[in-house]
Each structure stands twice: as C-alpha cells, then as structure tokens.
C-alpha cells in the first residue's frame, strides 16, 4: 500500500440526537457524543439497545428527532441525505451489488462521482490490492467467500475517501476462524488510514479488540463511554458490569480501611485491608481475579460445575453459605464435582460501583 494513502480524520459530534418511532416509543433517548478525529469507536450492546439506530443517524439513513444535530467537523450535516454525506458503510450482509464484478463494485462510488474511467480503474485496483484481493478483480460476487466479500465491501466503502467509515456488525455473518482474521485486517486498515470509524457490534470480544473507545448502550441510552480497559475494570454501573465479561457480585461492607464479606460466605471472612471508598455494600470481582490457593485460602467452596475451555477451566463453585461464584482456574487443572477448593481474594482486584 502506498504510504501516502491517508484519509482525513474528521471528528463527529452528536448533539441531543434521539429517535422516536412513528408508532410512538423511543428507540433512542436524546444523546450527546463526541467522536474524535481518527478514532475507532465501538457501539456495544444487546439487540434493541439503540446502537444501530445511532449508526444510521450518523450515516444519514435516519434523521434524529427535531432538535438533534449531527456535525462532521464543523459542518452541520443533519439535513444532508446519506448520498451527500460522503460516508463509507459496511453491512453485516455485505450488500455487494450482485450484478457487478468485484472491481465494478469497488469502483461504483467513483463512477457515480463522475471520476474518469482510467483513474477509476487505477484507484479501485489500488484499493483491492490494499485488501489483498488484487487477483479477484474480474470475479463475480458469488464466486467469493464470505470473508472475501466483506473485504470487497470494505474496499468499496474506502475507495471514495469517506469522511467516516461506518461498520454495522461486519463480522457477524462470518464463522469464528474467518472473523478473527478479518478483525485483525480491519484493525490494521483503520490504523493505517487514520480514518474516523464507527463500529457497531454485540460481540464484546470484537469491541475490546478494535475500539479506541467503547460506547456501551442499553435501552436507548448510553450506559458508559470509555476505553476497553475502563469498561472492563471500572464499569460505571451494574448493567455494564454484567454485560461486559463475567462478574461475581458479593455483598459485604467496607469501613475504616477494612472490608468484610457477608453472610453468603457462612463464616464472615476475616477482614481484609481495603483502600477503596468507605461504606461500600457490594463488591465485584472477575472470575480470573479469584485465585485458587494451595494453602492459606480466605474461604472454602465446593465445585458445582466445571467447564474445560482449553486455555482455562471455568468453575462454578458454591461457598459454605450458599453463595455461587464463577472462578477461572488454569486449563490443565482438573476438578471433580463436589470437590472442595480453597480460594483467595486480592482486595486490590475487587471493584465497587459508584454510588
């Protein structure tokens, strides 16, 4: 790829963008969001959370309710229909034109812009090379695999040098192996081009791997905006904590620099040092942050179920007081149902939700 191929990094701002359905009911509560130029932002959430609606408002396929505005840089594009916004879109279903060859698909945006034939062909070929499909230029779409089709769709969206690249679940239709490969490829392209990208997915793995920042959405609202690490390790509320990764919720209390876990553990745990906020009633801990202890465990539990996942073994254990916990153990360790295990907590790896 020629190193001079670099796209403008256009910042995008949504201002009070909400969306009501014609029959009543809100798909999206009015939201404000600033996307930095060149940033890859991922909208993550369960289906119906409003993430696709937000993407379609940015694209210009839906208009926000009155009062909402969309800015590309300093320009207010709210009234511009999609065909004049200069955006690139990639869809879950590829949406390649079946009546055109690979190269015709890629060149289509240039054709409608009136780019002369020779330049059109050169730019489309260059773009196809970039997604490593140079030798497929003359193929028909139905001769390509799913992964190849999505790469053609990427090339088609990027060749017109859009101000923003919008990707709507682009990997969902692919099988797991292809998905990982293409995800890496998309990541590479986005970094290389420096384009602002908005990526919608329900898959948290994709979100973590691709996003500079993640916008977690639920029920038409933004639940949290943050880097992948912030989302994972400092969830802003119970929804994010539950939705992203697996989380154990433990009740207890923290006071005067000490914490203790309560009644679910049978015998209350000897108090541990605590540097977090005073007065916390609930503690969160990830399965990988509970350790199996050879000796000197904080409490004992009984294995209720064990699932071998290859790189690790995921255990569901039950404490003496009846509190269920999900715990990750090394993959090579084998457990029997009913077996007793000793567990340790590191207070530094316990999380609390903001009050």
């Amino acid at each position, binding site marked *: 790829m020629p190193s001079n191929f670099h796209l403008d990094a256009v910042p995008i701002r949504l201002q009070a963008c909400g969306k009501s359905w014609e029959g009543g009911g809100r798909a999206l509560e009015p939201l404000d969001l600033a996307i930095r130029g060149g940033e890859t932002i991922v909208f993550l959430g369960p289906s119906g959370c409003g993430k696709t609606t937000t993407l379609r408002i940015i694209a210009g396929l839906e208009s926000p309710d009155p009062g909402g505005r969309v800015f590309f840089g300093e320009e207010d594009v709210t009234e511009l229909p999609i065909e004049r916004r200069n955006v*690139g*879109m990639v*869809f*879950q279903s590829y949406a*390649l034109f*079946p009546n055109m060859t690979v190269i015709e698909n890629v060149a289509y*945006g240039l054709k409608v812009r009136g780019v002369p034939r020779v330049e059109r062909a050169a730019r489309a070929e260059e773009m196809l090379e970039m997604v490593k499909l140079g030798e497929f230029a003359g193929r*028909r*779409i139905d001769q390509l695999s799913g992964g190849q089709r999505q790469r053609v769709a990427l090339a088609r969206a990027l060749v017109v040098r859009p101000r923003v690249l*919008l990707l709507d679940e682009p990997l969902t239709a692919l099988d797991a192996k292809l998905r990982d490969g293409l995800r890496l490829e998309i990541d590479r392209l986005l970094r290389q081009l420096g384009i602002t990208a908005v990526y919608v997915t329900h898959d948290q793995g994709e979100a973590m791997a691709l996003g500079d920042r993640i916008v977690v959405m639920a029920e038409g609202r933004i639940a949290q905006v943050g880097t992948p690490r912030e989302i994972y390790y400092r969830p802003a509320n119970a929804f994010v904590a539950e939705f992203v990764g697996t989380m154990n919720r433990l009740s207890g209390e923290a006071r005067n620099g000490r914490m203790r876990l309560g009644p679910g553990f049978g015998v209350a745990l000897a108090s541990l040092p605590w540097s977090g906020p005073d007065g916390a009633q609930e503690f969160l801990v990830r399965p990988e942050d509970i350790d199996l202890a050879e000796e000197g465990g904080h409490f004992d539990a009984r294995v209720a179920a064990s699932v071998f996942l290859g790189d690790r073994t995921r255990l569901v254990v039950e404490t003496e007081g009846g509190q269920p916990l999900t715990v990750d153990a090394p993959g090579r360790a084998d457990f029997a149902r009913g077996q007793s295990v000793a567990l340790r907590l590191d207070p530094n790896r316990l999380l609390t939700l903001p009050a």
Partner: protein
Amino acid sequence: MSLRDASSLLPPLRRGGRGRVRSGGRDLPLLAGMIAPAAAVFGAFFLLPLARLFAIGGGGAEGWAAYATILTDAGHRDGLIATVLLSAAVTAATLAASTVAGLFLVRHRFPGHALLVAMLTFPLAFPGVVVGFMVIMLAGRQGLLGTITQALFGGKLVFAYSMAGLFLGYLYFSIPRVILTVMAAAEKLDPRLEEAARSLGATRAQLVAHVILPALKPALLSAGALCFATAMGAFGTAFTLATRINVLPMIIYTEFTLQANLATAAALSLVLGLVTWAVLAAARSFAGSSVAAAG
C-alpha cells in the same frame, strides 16, 4: 405461497431449498404411485391428443407442407408477424408501466395503499372475453372515450374493434399480473443494497438504473415472457372485439370452424404452441441463470 407468486400465473420456485428431500430409493415405488394418476391423465388427454393433432396437421391435402404454410401463405405469414409485433408491443408497454407502478407501490407507503394494490390486481382472473368487453366499455361504440370525445370535439373516438383495441385489451389483461411479479421481486430486494448505493453517493435515478433494475431483471424476464406467450395465444379478447382482427388465434379459429380446414388449423395451432412454449422455456432458463449469477 402467496398470491403475489401464484398470481403471476405460475409461481416461481426457489430451487435448491432445504425442503427438497434427497430420497432414498426405498420410497421410489411409492412416489411413482403418487405421480402416476396425474401422469396418466396428462398423457392420455394432453400428450396423446397433441401427437394426434400433429399427425392430422400433416395429413391434409397439403401433407406435411401444411406446417410451412405459416411462412409460405401470405395471409398466415402476415397474421404471424402481426401477432408477434402486437405481443412484443404489449409486453414492452406492460413491463414499463408495471415496473413504474410496482416499484412505486413497494417503495412508498401512504393512506389507501392497500386499496390501490387491491384495485390494480383485481382484474387478474378475468377471462379474455370479459377483458374484451372492458375494452368495449372504454373504447367501443357506446364507450367512455367515445362519449368524452363526442362531448369535447364532436367526433367519436372508437377503436375497440381494431388492433389498437386488442392492444388495450392485452395491456388490461397483463398489467395486474406483471405488477404483482414486480412487487414480489422488489419486496425481496435486500434494503441494504439500496443503502450501500446511497452511501456511495448514488442518486435516485442511478440507484434505480444500477441496482434495482438489474436485481429485478430475472423477474422482469419471466414476467415478460409470460406476458408475451399469453398475448400470442389469447383468443377470447380478439373473439369478443371482432372476428376480423388478423391475429394467429383468430386465423386458426376461422380455418377450423368456417372453412373446416382441420389440417391447417392443427398445423397452425401446433406451431403457435411451439413458439409460445419455446419463448417461455428460453426465458425461464435465461432468468434462471441470471438468478444463479446474482447469488
């Protein structure tokens, strides 16, 4: 199975669906037994009579040359040319009008939409005679157009009993089914294709020309072929409008009833059947292959 599909007279089949059972040979006698009654009736009352008709076509005074009269006899040849031209014109006009209206109805929703669709498809099952009568109502001696032109210009416009009337009648007959086919096909289009084209900057006209029409091509092809074939063989409308219209079905009818020339009638009707069936089969395989190309 929807009317959308059924109504275009022969509903299109989605081939290669999961529903097709690759049956073990065990069921073969059973399945053969299930198709046997239909096959027997079909063989006895269709294939056998057609074969007999074929023999009779060659058994007249002219012998097998009867099959050539469609080209050698000036009257027959003119009739064939007129029928083909009329059918082609009807097909072109029907496709154009139905595509505009069908696309419009699929792409827009407005109050009264369902009623409009119902009205446009109501004449679907009208027999040719009734269609002929509808043309008379519009453009006959006591027709609406005549009355209007009489009031406006003092002269009566009457064209029901001519080739123009027949054209109008076939248009009347074909539009409902082609609209249904267009709508059914347009509803199956992936809306993402349209969004993708627009995101790339395509205007509405470009969208229609580059994306929608190519996607509708298989449906338009088969609907057009059906329209053409129906117009070639239709008899009732011409019969109602006038016996003097020189189209092939009328020629066959006249040969058979008025001149009792069974051999010629047989030969002509077989040629007509062959042409019609060939057009349909060609369009089907053509449409089928472009569907496959569309993946």
